[in-house]
């Protein structure tokens, strides 16, 4: 059973546009929601993260929006750049055992 559901599977955005990736979860035991960015040939790297006690977190062009009641969270990339082209994974952490569960990933392509 997939703990974190992520969509879309792939996304193509024009340079300067907004990229939006969505994730949903069911387990209310999750207490931390990071997003990871993975470039080809590299391992995933932490991009930005949020706790469920806040509804939004912004770091530069990257924003997480969190809806606790709907059990959904999303990543917004403003002013998308070709260098943002990568695979993005959402994740959720269950505090007990410090276990992380990952979404299926979204392949983002930003075209010039």
């Amino acid at each position, binding site marked *: 059973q997939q703990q974190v559901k992520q969509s879309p599977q792939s996304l193509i955005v024009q340079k300067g546009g907004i990229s939006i990736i969505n994730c949903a979860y069911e387990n209310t035991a999750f207490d931390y929601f990071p997003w990871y960015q993975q470039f080809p040939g590299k*391992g995933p*790297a932490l991009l930005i*993260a949020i706790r469920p006690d806040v509804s939004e977190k912004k770091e530069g062009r990257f924003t997480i929006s969190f809806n606790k009641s709907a059990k959904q969270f999303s990543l917004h990339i403003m002013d998308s750049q070709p260098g943002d082209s990568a695979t993005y994974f959402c994740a959720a*952490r269950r505090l007990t055992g*410090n276990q992380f569960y990952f979404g299926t*990933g979204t392949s983002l392509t930003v075209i010039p």
Partner: protein
Amino acid sequence: EADIYQTPRYLVIGTGKKITLECSQTMGHDKMYWYQQDPGMELHLIHYSYGVNSTEKGDLSSESTVSRIRTEHFPLTLESARPSHTSQYLCASSEPAGNTIYFGEGSWLTVV
């Protein structure tokens, strides 16, 4: 930049061979993980360890085995490789209650 290293990065071996994927981290993290990732697919946790002499199986059943004799070292072994083992294997580490998982760059295994 995470200090977690995996070798080999790429490996092509024949069916039936024994292989060991090496993973080392210099951050002193107690918790370490092995994830399996097929192209364009989610990360599946196959093994994790809370510390020396601790190993646990993850959510995805795997024929591989792991050992944790030293804090910094978490090798993964396949006793008899099969084509179905062809995949990318990602090693990661975190502090026991840490919010961030640090990934290595991955080991691409192809079994022919």
